[in-house]
């Protein structure tokens, strides 16, 4: 029933919720008054998968989520829930659970009434009896670890508690998919971390196909089975956290997933040249011509001069965990900050070799 997503099968086992479906969007485009928010996005999400839509603000990630939910309609393209074409279904017909960044709880209703809302607005024929609704609310309160708070009003809850109520309310209608728009965006760092683990746990227990939008790289990598990275309305890369981190498809993905330093080089005759001198770096079949090496400071180690990329120590400072050494790469203005163990001591103006765990070479634009 579930297509195992590459690289995660085995490590994470989510029991797929009965009734949850995969989602496929194809060729989604969205224009707002002439400017393109999304441009030809294709994405397939497996049933029971937890996927992150990651991107900077303005990348179109929230718009894509809202189009899937039916809160927004695409200018072009279609949305499929399982095999059903949902492109023209209204938001009510789509049966999605949506969690908003600012919770959007109903302030005039108690926690219990908020959670029961989706069931109580159903037409009389489909509405469960009062007792069944109460039971369901109780179950969900336990699931989100808020038992005993059912008679509180949203104003009497903390931010983290409100977001849990919002999730319980979304789950109450037994949605086909769960969509979360920056669910932890308005919370402080400590609560974010706790809720992250908690959401993963809930997902593994309930097994809903889940899409969440975030601009936080850490959050996306830690929480999701797969991450879809968007920039300027286009899908840059989709893959497991390991795939996107180890094999970024573009300089954008690379630089978005943490600090990088760009070093302009040239590829000539199968060698990588820095200011005309060959570097001890494998070009990995990169095209001839100007190119850029992207260095992740945490993938760089320092070695004696004569190996790797030559550089000169510009400064060094002691930190709690070791030393932070600033190295100027030879023949360039590029400065790179490298963390080294405290035992390693260097002096300013020492010549060193920079070793890369992995060279990431992209043609210059």
């Amino acid at each position, binding site marked *: 029933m579930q297509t195992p997503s590459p690289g995660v099968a085995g490590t994470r086992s989510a029991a797929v919720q009965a009734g949850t479906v995969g989602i496929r969007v194809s060729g989604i485009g969205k224009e707002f008054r002439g400017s393109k928010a999304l441009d030809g996005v294709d994405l397939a999400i497996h049933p029971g998968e937890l996927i992150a839509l990651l991107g900077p603000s303005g990348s179109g990630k929230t718009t894509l989520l809202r189009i899937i*939910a*039916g*809160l927004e309609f695409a200018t072009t393209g279609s949305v499929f829930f399982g095999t059903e074409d949902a492109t023209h279904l209204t*938001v*009510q017909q789509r*049966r*999605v*659970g*949506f969690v*908003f960044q*600012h919770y*959007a*709880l*109903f*302030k*005039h*209703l*108690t926690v219990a009434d908020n959670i029961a*809302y*989706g069931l109580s*607005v*159903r037409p009389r024929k489909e509405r469960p009896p009062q007792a069944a609704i109460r039971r369901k609310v109780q179950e969900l309160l336990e699931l989100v670890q808020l038992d005993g708070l059912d008679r509180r*009003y*949203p*104003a*009497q809850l903390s931010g983290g508690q409100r977001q849990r109520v*919002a999730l319980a*309310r*979304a789950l*109450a*209608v037994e949605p086909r998919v769960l969509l979360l728009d920056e669910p932890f965006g308005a919370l402080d760092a400590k609560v974010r971390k706790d809720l992250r683990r908690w959401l993963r746990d809930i997902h593994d227990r309930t097994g809903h196909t889940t899409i969440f939008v975030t601009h936080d790289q850490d959050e996306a990598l830690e929480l999701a089975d797969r991450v879809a990275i968007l920039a300027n309305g286009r899908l840059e890369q989709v893959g497991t956290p390991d795939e996107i981190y180890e094999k970024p498809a573009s300089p954008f993905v690379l630089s978005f997933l943490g600090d990088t330093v760009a070093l302009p080089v040239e590829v000539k005759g199968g060698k990588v040249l820095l200011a005309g001198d060959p570097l001890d770096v494998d070009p990995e079949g990169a095209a001839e011509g100007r190119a850029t090496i992207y260095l992740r400071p945490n993938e760089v180690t320092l070695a004696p001069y004569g190996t790797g990329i030559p550089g000169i120590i510009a400064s060094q400072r002691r930190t709690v965990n070791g030393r932070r050494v600033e190295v100027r790469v030879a023949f360039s203005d590029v400065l790179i900050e490298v963390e080294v163990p405290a035992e390693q001591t260097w002096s300013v103006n020492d010549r060193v070799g920079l070793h890369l765990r992995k060279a990431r070479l992209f043609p210059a634009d």
Partner: protein
Amino acid sequence: MAAVATAREGWLPRFRQKSVIPGFGLAFGYTLVYLGIIVLIPLGGLILRASGIGLSGLWNVATDPRVAGALKLSFGTALLAAVFAAVFGLLIAWVLTRYRFPGRRLIDAAVDLPFALPTAVAGIALSALYAQNGLIGSIFAPYGIKIAYTPVGIFIALVFVSVPFTVRTVQPLIAEIDREQEEASATLGASRAQTIWRVLLPPLIPAILTGLALAFARAVGEYGSVIFIAGNLPYISEIAPLLIVIKLEEFDYTGATAIATLMLAISFSILLLINLIQAWSRKRFGYV
């Protein structure tokens, strides 16, 4: 600092609230003086004057058919007008805050006109419009419906003068409604009507009641606009404030103050009732 605070606390031990803003004594004293001079002393004088005839005298005035008819008419039309204005005002406020259309600012400004217009002007304009040969009155005249010079005319004049209150009290709250709440309701499967009834309206109820109370208070005391359109037939379209003026012109000061005291008592009980409902609804709808 603490020593100073404790020393002061002895002075007004029960009311004093610890606060970073100074001037509690001054502000509280000013409030009492103001309330006393402007509101309580005149009202006290009124009651004192009326009490000259005693409770039985007051009862006699209240049961006089002409007075009873006027009071019934005044409070009946005022309540009806306030309720109508509350519904209608909610709609105006909704349209003005939610929709963008050409001339919105003009209409928004026009809502306040009944505040600014001398009420006599409004009364004359309305009676000209609604008289049997007037622009609107002539439409209804062939069907035998008379608007001006009947209680219906009074109702229309009262709605006119009280509608700004109901618009302005709910407008800021409508502007504050979070779109995400509507979207959340829709994702949970609620229809548009269910969203309005169950999500959008309940938080507005306290403000609607405030508007209703203000509109009612204004309508009960309204004089200028009503006397032109009412026709002022005793027992049929004579409002209580007019009856007071008539008594005054007859130098029957005790009778005038007696009617005024009755109006005061009824108004106060109705306003208190609305306030209590409002306090309850605030609690009910989660304003904690």
